[in-house]
């Protein structure tokens, strides 16, 4: 090994503490990058394989009832490669031993053989026996939540008819990777299930022999989705179509799409912050390291080493730190990635997961960290190497100082000498001070982000499920019922209050904007379901006109006073033109609200409702629940409290891992910046500080001068970290916006306090580590060695 390489290794060993701190920061950035990138790549790859191998459909259309012959006409449309028909219906399940009713979507499977599209992955048990009419398959998530195994029995109520079925297997479908009830925010596997049964058995229950109510299709290569959807709608119009839709309106597909998009944002934002801070640290550390080796650089050059040789020498040191950080980061990222992927597996029920860390991810990680490291150190090394040898051999001229700004503003005697030194030191190198403050601010901001997801999503749930919704129980009817049905249910023992509502699937149009959603018809003066405005005040439903949530209004490009075309996607497919009366702020879904009576009048259906909201006496919830469930006209009943609790559990699970990773990494950055800054300051000013000790300053006084500067910078960084943290949260939140939900930026005071506290604690720990070194300052040596 060449002597100069030995020097590189020894120098690295000598600065191992600082090198480790930098390597850890780099490792954090690379870990974030590898974790999120590998998870994203693995999930996308798994999804794509699942969709291809299990023949995920491109198009869905639901109708009220259509003869099988109509499918042939759809199949002949240009752009349609293949079609498949099936039956689909809502049902109620009763799981022995589970007190609450379970809502289910039942889909038919061909009586013989596998479906052509949306094939099932059988996780346990076996497929249905051909033509069996008492067997079914259940979704694996639901089976897992209730510990169901093949051979268990379930009671299914379909169209008012109740029958016992035997579970013969559990399955995963590409249509239900994200198995969520429409309108919900998070899956509830205990109370929502997907069930598959034979076509013949289901046709008998629904009275749909020779007919279908859902058709799925795969598009021909290169076919236009929009054109094909329009053509399908035309063919199916008279069969009571609710409008065909593509993958983007398929709930599970859409959730995956949005979630992957958000994960993509994370893969960009976080690694950039970490690697940026690492580059900054390297810059500061190397400016000082090379500065201290100024004479060694000069000697190397005096003996004939070229500038390029010197640059390479330091590049080697930097690269070794970068590589160590990368290696650590890739390993940590790979491990964290498996943890994250496992967490996603709880929500995305992929039957398999192709977890992979692509060579490209690792290559990108290593390249990015080396670039960050070299960019950070490059300036310092080039500056040192470019200095003329003779001037580098001379002692550096005393640094230029001047009276600090604050000194000039304050009366002459109001500042102590140590305070003057601190202020002048900061002002002499404003760029370095600014960079240190910025680095610390990002560390604090990351601490804030750790809390942002958790608190914002909880806040969203609070607004959506506590402020806007006031009921205890809700029930949906199997079909429209006269409004007096609400009064009947209101008369049940234990019920305090009841309100009828009506939900209608619609397509809203304004100019060239069009969106599928549902309108909720609410009674004016109702209190159990009340849209809220941006000041969190309930908004009364006006006699006429629509109340839209502001996100939906933006999507449609409308505001109060504009008119929206409403196309009803059920029954007689009526049209209506309604003015926008109010805007409200909903964070979940794309809800539109309208006066129930006005809705019924517009649709000409008489005084009808599709469900009810109820409040019940304390302790009566289970009894009322049971009573509702018993009624054949009730499709499903839900408890708001139970859903909210399930929601909080899901949120805690999902955000917990992210929070701990963020706290750990924010701490690493903070320590990296503070510890390195202190060590550098000590190394640069060791002579000065030792001289002060010789002059009679105590260790404490010397520490005050050294650490006081850092304390000022830490204090300055805290308000900046609040601003940066808020900005980053806002950026994340705006990226979390989707039709499904909008996360509000809600950062509680505790999150600010948490960020400030961790910054201070970390700074104090770093300060203590450095203070110990002040104790070992060489007081005699400083007087002997040359300047």
């Amino acid at each position, binding site marked *: 090994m*060449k*002597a*100069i390489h*030995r*020097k590189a290794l*020894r*120098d690295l060993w*000598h600065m191992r503490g600082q090198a480790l701190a930098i390597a850890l920061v780099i490792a954090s950035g690379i870990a974030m990058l590898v974790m999120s990138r590998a998870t994203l790549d693995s999930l996308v790859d798994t999804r794509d394989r699942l969709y291809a191998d299990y023949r995920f459909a491109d198009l869905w259309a639901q109708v009220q009832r259509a003869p099988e012959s109509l499918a042939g006409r759809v199949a002949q449309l240009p752009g349609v490669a293949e079609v498949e028909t099936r039956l689909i219906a809502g049902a109620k399940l009763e799981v022995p031993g589970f007190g609450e009713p379970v809502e289910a979507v039942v889909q038919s499977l061909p009586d013989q053989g596998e479906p052509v599209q949306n094939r099932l992955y059988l996780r346990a048990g076996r497929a249905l026996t051909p033509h069996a009419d008492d067997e079914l398959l259940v979704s694996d998530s639901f089976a897992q939540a209730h510990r169901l195994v093949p051979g268990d029995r379930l009671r299914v109520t379909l169209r008012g008819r109740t029958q016992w079925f035997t579970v013969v297997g559990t399955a995963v479908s590409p249509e239900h990777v994200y198995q969520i009830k429409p309108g919900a925010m998070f899956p509830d596997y205990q109370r929502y299930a997907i069930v598959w049964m034979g076509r013949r058995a289901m046709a008998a229950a629904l009275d749909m022999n020779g007919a279908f109510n859902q058709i799925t299709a795969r598009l021909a290569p290169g076919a236009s989705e929009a054109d094909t959807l329009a053509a399908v709608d035309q063919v199916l119009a008279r069969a009571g179509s609710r409008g065909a839709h593509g993958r983007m309106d398929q709930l599970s597909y859409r959730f995956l799409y949005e979630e992957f998009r958000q994960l993509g944002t994370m893969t960009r934002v976080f690694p950039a912050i970490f690697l940026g801070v690492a580059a900054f640290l390297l810059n500061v550390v190397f400016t000082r390291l090379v500065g201290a080796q100024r*004479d*060694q650089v*000069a*000697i*190397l*050059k*005096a*003996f*004939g*080493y*070229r*500038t390029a*040789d010197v640059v390479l020498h330091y590049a080697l040191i930097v690269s070794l730190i970068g590589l160590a950080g990368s290696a650590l980061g890739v390993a940590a990222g790979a491990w964290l990635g498996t943890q994250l992927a496992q967490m996603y597996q709880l929500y995305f029920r992929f039957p398999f997961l192709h977890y992979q860390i692509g060579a490209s991810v690792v290559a990108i990680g290593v390249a990015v960290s080396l670039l960050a490291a070299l960019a950070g150190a490059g300036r310092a090394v080039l500056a040192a190497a470019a200095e*003329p*040898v*003779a*001037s580098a*051999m*001379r002692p550096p*001229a*005393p640094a*230029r100082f001047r009276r600090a700004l604050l000194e000039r503003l304050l009366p002459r005697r109001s500042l102590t000498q140590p305070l003057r030194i601190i202020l002048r030191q900061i002002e002499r190198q404003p760029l370095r001070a600014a960079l240190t403050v910025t680095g610390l601010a990002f560390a604090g901001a990351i601490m804030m982000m750790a809390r942002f997801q958790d608190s914002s999503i909880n806040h969203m749930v609070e607004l959506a499920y506590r402020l806007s919704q006031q009921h205890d129980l809700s029930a949906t009817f199997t079909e429209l019922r006269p409004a007096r049905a609400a009064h009947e249910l209101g008369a049940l023992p234990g019920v305090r209050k009841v309100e009828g509502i009506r939900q209608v699937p619609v397509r809203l149009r304004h100019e060239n904007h069009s969106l599928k959603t549902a309108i909720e018809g609410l009674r004016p003066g109702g209190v159990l379901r009340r849209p809220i405005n941006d000041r969190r005040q309930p908004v009364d439903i006006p006699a006429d006109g629509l109340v839209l949530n502001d996100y939906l209004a933006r999507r449609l490009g409308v505001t109060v006073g504009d008119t929206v075309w409403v196309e009803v996607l059920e029954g007689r497919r009526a049209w209506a033109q309604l003015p926008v009366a109010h805007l409200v702020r909903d964070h979940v879904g794309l809800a539109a609200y309208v006066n129930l009576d006005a809705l019924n009048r517009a649709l000409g259906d008489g005084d009808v409702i599709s469900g009810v909201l109820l409040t019940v006496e304390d302790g009566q919830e289970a009894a009322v629940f049971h009573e509702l469930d018993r009624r054949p006209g009730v499709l499903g009943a839900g408890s708001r409290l139970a859903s909210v609790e399930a929601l909080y559990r899901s949120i805690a699970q999902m955000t917990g891992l992210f929070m701990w990773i963020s706290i750990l990494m924010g701490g690493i950055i903070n320590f990296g910046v503070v510890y390195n800054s202190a060590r550098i300051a000590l190394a640069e000013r060791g002579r000065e500080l030792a001289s002060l000790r010789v002059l009679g300053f105590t260790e404490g006084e010397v520490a005050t001068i050294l650490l006081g500067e850092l304390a000022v910078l830490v204090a300055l960084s805290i308000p900046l970290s609040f601003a940066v943290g808020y900005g980053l949260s806002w950026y994340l939140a705006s990226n979390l916006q989707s039709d499904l939900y909008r996360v509000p930026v809600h950062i509680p005071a505790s999150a600010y306090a948490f960020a400030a506290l961790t910054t201070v604690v970390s700074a104090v720990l770093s300060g203590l580590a450095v203070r110990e070194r002040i104790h070992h300052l060489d007081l005699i040596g400083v007087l002997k060695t*040359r300047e």
Partner: protein
Amino acid sequence: MVITQGEAVFRAEGLTKVYRLGDVEVHALRGIDLMLYAGEFVVLLGPSGSGKSTLLNILGGLDVPSAGHVWYHGEDLTAAGDAQLTQFRRDHVGFVFQFYNLIPSLTARENVAIVTDIAPHPMPPEDALGLVGLRERLDHFPAQLSGGEQQRVAIARAIAKRPVVLLCDEPTGALDSATGTHVLQALEQVNATLGTTTVVITHNVDIARMAHRVLTMADGRIVREAVNAERLAAKELRW
């Protein structure tokens, strides 16, 4: 390059150097004319700030004059670029500094190797250290060596490449008399055995007695030139 005794190695004409140190403008050299010959042992005397180090740095290609010219074997160093000066130093010049300037993270042997690694015809580091009497201290780090030993490592480092010229800036300035004598003996031996043109800067008038020629500087000029009719051996020097 073969150099016969008495051939001119350096020729300088009208060397001037002005540089700034902070806010102060320093006139380090004010028009120096000089010839240095192959195999010569020259001592540069003069008080602090007289311009000795600046002259040495310019001769060694570490610095460039503000005006004037230096020729090394007929080649104008003042017209050379950074790359050519680097090559010049790498191939022909050895330096010894007052404060040794060893690299603290390398052992004695490695401090020499850092030069022999890049020199065209070096001697083994062990031999160079042997020449200065440090064969037993090869694997000691600078912090484990005395001042005199460190300076001898620096001399070994300077001569290991078999330089044509050896430029020494106060090599004994930080050493006591006995240790300094050891160091001078090493320089004397190198000059005698390798025929290296040696220039030594010193404050110490006694050391001048071992030189072939003594140049005295003051205020940026050479004010006196003397040839020693009779040289003393380094071991005979006392101060």
